[in-house]
């Protein structure tokens, strides 16, 4: 696998992870399902995977970048499995509405598993790590993917501040803490 092909695959992976984060945002903003603390930590795992992919896109593929990708996915996987186990007892309806038959945390566990296996498989191709002086630093698609990743990281940060204010999030959030009475509304009141 050439460095250029590896970079292309990393760009596509980065866009794929951004799509996952955008689906979560649509569910939050359009359907009003606020993410729970464990949901937020799974999002953080995805953003970590996105940042590791972005390192490969910007600086070329390196084993250390894949290592960070696997570690980020492992953290997200652990959180997702923890949430699955919280709702594994018979009769438990789970947290949130199912999406395509599975809850978001079940999808997250599957996707983190795919990332771990995918990154480990890509590590098998040594030729991608050879220095390629002709490899361009930027391409249009790479720039779009990096911009999307940056926007997803920042958007989740801002959304989390609105939802949880400066502290830890409630276990079952029903509203944006910072937008309630006594939050930002008082701050901007005349």
């Amino acid at each position: 696998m050439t460095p250029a092909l590896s970079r292309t695959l990393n760009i596509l992976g980065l866009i794929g992870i951004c799509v996952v984060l955008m689906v979560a945002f649509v569910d939050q903003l359009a359907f009003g399902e606020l993410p729970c603390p464990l949901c937020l930590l799974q999002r953080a795992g995805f953003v970590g995977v996105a940042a590791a992919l972005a390192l490969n896109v910007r600086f070329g593929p390196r084993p250390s970048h894949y290592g960070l990708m696997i570690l980020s996915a492992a953290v997200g996987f652990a959180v997702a499995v923890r949430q699955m186990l919280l709702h594994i007892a018979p009769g438990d309806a789970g947290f949130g509405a199912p999406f395509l038959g599975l809850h978001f945390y079940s999808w997250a566990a599957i996707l983190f598993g795919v990332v771990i296996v995918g990154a480990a498989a890509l590590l098998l191709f040594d030729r991608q790590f050879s220095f390629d002086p002709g490899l361009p630093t930027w391409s249009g698609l790479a720039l779009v993917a990096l911009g999307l990743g940056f926007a997803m990281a920042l958007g989740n940060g801002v959304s989390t501040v609105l939802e949880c204010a400066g502290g830890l999030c409630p276990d079952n959030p029903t509203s944006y803490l910072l937008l309630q009475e006594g939050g930002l509304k008082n701050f901007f009141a005349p």
Partner: protein
Amino acid sequence: MMSLPFFGFTLAFAGILAGQRRLAVALLALSLIATLVLFKVHATDALPISL
């Protein structure tokens, strides 16, 4: 508090865009550690299963 990892990752992305690889890697690693610490804080409920 819960937003810390996201802002850490945001800064890591900024480092990537600015061409600062070492800074971006350090910020990514720190944000991952922050995520793990927050996970430890939130993983307090007993699981409804007996193993």
